[in-house]
Structure formats: structure tokens, C-alpha cells
């Protein structure tokens, strides 16, 4: 294995940085059920890291551990070279970890622009009193952050629906707005929980392009869960495979494709 503090260049010519997040022996239990059993893996800076596995393998639970929703009973999360103490999700967000959800979690009562602007909240520091006066500090900060939000809106090509209430949008666009909200936070790690679930081929192509562009242009580290194997194999630099809460494979897409345990997990195996 490569040293965790060093960068390296992949066979596709992509430069992958040192390890930014490391999960060490994570175990997560819900009562008697072990959703995650003693899993370790790391995420390197600038890479696209996929987490795959059959339904119920514990992928989403893993993402929830990273984003602070679940606190694992055992194991450590290391982020940027330091052990992360047990944190509330909003504290994790302030450390620069943003995510999207499997079933869209947008703010339905707000416009697209307002949704994207909520992504900027971690960057907005004006006090309540200054906000009540608006003129001056609050307005300046608002405009400054609006500019960033508009850049993201341009980037994801949703300018036309800026002022539309989110509740009126079709599914594919909602997914894109959710990505915009996560990106607006300018995260160092972006977690995507099934970004392409329920999309047709064209929408998947669009989404894949956006994910690659985000990784390219902003250098954002991305960890994603996806069921479409074609997409996973094309997009990701490294893949973790989970089954029944255990890690059964970890490596480049090619490694994983030829791993017998992974093949067994997906295709089934004869028990004799």
C-alpha cells in the first residue's frame, strides 16, 4: 500500500493526494444488530472514492458515521491528521464536510436560490443585531456569499430555475439543486449518497459529468455511494466494497472487479 502521507499518480495520470480522512476499526451497532463490523479504510485528498455493496450492506450507515449522524460504538475517525472527537452533525459540517441524501432533503418551502444560500451558512458570521439593520455588514456579507452561490448555480446550469420554489421542480433537478447546496459550502470532502438513484441514462450522464467537473475544477474530494456499476467503475479512483457490514474489498476498480469475494457477494455463491 502507498504511504498515507504521500501523493501518487494513478495509471490514468490523476494525482491523488495524501490521506485526509481515515476510518479506523469502526463498529456501529443498533441494539443487537451490527450495521458496521470493524471496518477500516481511508479517503485521499482529491480522489473520488466509491462505497459499494448490496442493499443493507451498511453503506449509508458508513456515510452517516462520517457526517456525524451516528457515533460508532468502537473505532476512531481521523480527519486531517487529528482524531475527531464525537461531534454533532452541524460541527462536522463546519469542519468542511458536506453531503447529499439518498432521498432528497431539500427545503421545500424555499426557492432554489435560498436553498443554495443555506449552503453558505457556515461562512456567514454576522450577528443577529447587524442582520436586523441589514444595511452595512449584513448586506455586504449577503452579497459576497450570493456571488459564490451564483457561481455554483452557473456551474450546475440551474440559472433558469433560480427563483423557483423547490417543491415545483422535477426529481432530476432537485438532485442537482441538492448537489449545488452541498457545493456552496465549498467543502473539502463531499459525500454523495446515491446521487444517481432513479435517474435515466441521460440524467446519469449529466450527473457524472458534474461530479467529475467538481472534482476537477474545485479539487473537491468526493466519497459516493452508487449502485450503477458502470458509473462507479468509470468515475472512481478507488472503491470500498461492503457486504453485511463487513469490508470485503478495497482498491482500484480493476482490483475490485476481479476480487472473488466481491463477485460472490454480488452474484451469490453456492453453499454446499
Amino acid at each position, binding site marked *: 500500500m502507498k504511504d498515507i502521507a504521500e501523493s501518487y499518480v494513478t495509471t490514468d495520470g490523476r494525482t491523488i493526494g495524501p490521506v485526509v480522512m481515515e476510518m479506523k476499526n469502526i463498529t456501529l451497532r443498533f441494539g443487537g444488530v451490527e450495521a458496521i463490523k470493524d471496518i477500516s479504510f481511508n479517503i485521499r485528498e482529491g480522489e473520488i472514492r466509491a462505497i459499494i455493496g448490496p442493499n443493507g450492506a451498511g453503506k449509508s450507515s458508513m456515510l452517516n458515521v462520517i457526517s456525524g449522524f451516528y457515533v460508532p460504538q468502537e473505532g476512531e475517525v481521523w480527519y486531517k491528521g487529528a482524531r475527531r472527537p464525537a461531534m454533532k452533525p452541524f460541527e462536522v459540517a*463546519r469542519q468542511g464536510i458536506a453531503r447529499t441524501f439518498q432521498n432528497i432533503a431539500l427545503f421545500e418551502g424555499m426557492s432554489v436560490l435560498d436553498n443554495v444560500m443555506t449552503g453558505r451558512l457556515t461562512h456567514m458570521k454576522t450577528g443577529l443585531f447587524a442582520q436586523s439593520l441589514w444595511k452595512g455588514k449584513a448586506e455586504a456579507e449577503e452579497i459576497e456569499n450570493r456571488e459564490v452561490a451564483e457561481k455554483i448555480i452557473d456551474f450546475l446550469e440551474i440559472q433558469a430555475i433560480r427563483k423557483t420554489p423547490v417543491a415545483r421542480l422535477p426529481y432530476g433537478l432537485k438532485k442537482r439543486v441538492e448537489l449545488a447546496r452541498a457545493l456552496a459550502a465549498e467543502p473539502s470532502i463531499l459525500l454523495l449518497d446515491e446521487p444517481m438513484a432513479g435517474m435515466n441514462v441521460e440524467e446519469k450522464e449529466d450527473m457524472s459529468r458534474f461530479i467529475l467537473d467538481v472534482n476537477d475544477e474545485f479539487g473537491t474530494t468526493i466519497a459516493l455511494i452508487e449502485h450503477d456499476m458502470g458509473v462507479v467503475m468509470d468515475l472512481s479512483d478507488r472503491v470500498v466494497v461492503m457486504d453485511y457490514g463487513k469490508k470485503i474489498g478495497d482498491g482500484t476498480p480493476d482490483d475490485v472487479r476481479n476480487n472473488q469475494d466481491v463477485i460472490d457477494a454480488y452474484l451469490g455463491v453456492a453453499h454446499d
Partner: protein
Amino acid sequence: MFYREAGDFNTSYAEDQQTFPIKFDRYRYYVVLFIAIVIIPFVINDYWANSLLLPFLIYAIAALGLNILVGYCGQVSLGTGGFMAVGAYSCYKFMTGVDIWWGGELLFRLPEFNIFFSIIMGGVMTAIVGVLFGLPSLRIKGFYLAVATLAAQFFLVWLFNRVAWFYNYSASGQISAPERELFGVLITGPSTPAWATYLFCLFFTVVCAIVARNMTRGAAGRKWMAIRDMDIAAEIIGVNPLRAKLTAFAVSSFFIGISGALFFAVYLGAVEVGEAFSITKSFLVLFMIIIGGLGSIFGSFAGAAFLVVLPVALKIVGVDWFGWPTDIVAHLQLVVVGGLIVIFLIAEPHGIAQLWRVAKEKLRLWPFPH
């Protein structure tokens, strides 16, 4: 046609984010302000001030406050009456000089505050009490929170009834506002000029509305709305739910406290807590924002106007025009207002504010259908 936005371009984010991005709206707002500030004070009389304008302005502040909590932050509260009482009693104590006792001895007595600052202090004290009673909102949601805030309503009314210190040990158990003036004009007491009380309340209403608008269009408002729409997602983007909910409680209670203080000091002059600030008041303000429109500044005004103006209008039509007996009109009022509320909620569950938005949408295109 009537409502044009063609040719109205915003060329900067500052222009796009102003309160009234459309010119027509902006001028209408200036006209309304002009009439309210410059014209009405000259034509006002006691009847119009006391039956219509003062209650409208004061309830509008309470509705704004409750709307921030319920409409923007999604935390249902039934404690409005109790919080208004806190505003009223704090204002009274600061007007008459707060006395602090310890072991039967007077430790010190604050000087009597000017009426303006007494009312501000009413808001401040209510904000503190509101935050205290907002603490359960971190654990309980929806109807259950509404029931928990009922505790505030009953406890606060009981407190102001029982503890004689709050009403300065007066024999009647009432509080009555002493005569106070601002810039040499009487604001409280029995012989105040109508225009002065009107302008005093108008000032608070306008400032509160601007503050509410500024907060709800910026970062604070987005935090509140994020909590309202989906609290889990709000937390994942970095909103601290504890702080967001408690600031909503604080700001909301501040407004409600100011309206309670004005209600007591300027409008009624003397109150008995069980009568003036009972649970009925909580429901009244809640109905105002439901009818007016949750999550809308305009809706708060529309709701307050609807519930204040309608009974008066019915009385004028019934008693003055048709000459019906007063008691029949009084009963008719209840029937008609109740019926209208039901019809309203069926026809437009999102309130008058939504009706207004739809009307604007139609007026933009009139006389063409598309």
C-alpha cells in the same frame, strides 16, 4: 397591465435582494407609509384610534412575532398571551421603578424609566422568558411543543395573579399605567391625544416590520426556514438547531413583549392579567397568522387587519346602517367571523398572503390569460 414589472431590471445583487424588487411595489409601500405617517394623524379621532388603528398596529406586532416563530421557524406556540403579559408587567415595573427586596428590606430601586425604554425593556424581559420556555423545543416538536407552551401561558398568568410584587401590591390586583409623556406629549394615561398614541404605536410597528423583514431575508431567516422545512438537513449543512430555535424564540418573544407592553400601557391603560392576557389572546394571534399567511410579513398585517377590522365593520353595518339591536349584532359577529375563517381556510389554506400573491400573478398578465 396594472401590475407591471417589464422594464424593471435589477443590475446588482443588492438591488435583487431589496425588500421590494419591483418598482410598483416599492412606490405603493412609500404611499402607504406617507398616508400612515403624514395624513392619518391629522384626521384621526378617539373612536377610530381605539376601535381600529391601535388594536390593528399592536396585534400586527404580536402577529409578526408569532409568525417568526411559527411561520418561519416551524415551532408552534400557544403561549402568546402569557408572553404579552410578561411584556405588560415588565413595562409596568420599569415605568414605576423596579424595586428589589431582600429579607423584607428594600435593597434598591431603579429610577423610573421613560415610557419608550419601558416598552423596550418589556420586549427584552419577554425575550429572556421566551428563551426559557423555548428550551423544551429542542426535544419536542409539533403539537407536543404546542402543549408544552401552554404551560407558559398558564404559569405566567398564575404568576402575575399571585405575586403581588408584580402589580406593586395594589388592592385591586390590577396594573394601571401612570401618566407618562414623550417629548412633552402624553403617551399613557386617561387623557392622551389620539394622534400621539397612534404615532407611538405606528413607530414600533414599522420598526418591528422592517427588523422582521431584514432578519427573515438574510442568514437568520434561512436558518429558521431550514429548521422548519427539514431539521435533519438543516443540521447537516451546519445549522446549530439549539441556537436557531432559541434565537427564533427570543426574537419572537421580543416582538410579542413589545406588543403586550403597548397593549397595556398605551391601548388599555389598565389590565387584569386573567382577562387581558388569557388563552383567548394566544388563539387570537395564532388565528391571525394562520388566516394572514404563515411565513409572510404581509400576512401578519393582513391577518391582524382581518380579525380587528371585520368585527368593527360588521358592527357598523349592523348597528349603524341597518339599526339592528346591539346584542344580535354581537352574536352575528361571532357567527360571521367564524364562518369566514372556515371558508377562508378551505378556499386558501395558505392565507391572505397567498391570495395576494395569486392576485398579483393574475394582474401581471391582465387582460390576457397567459
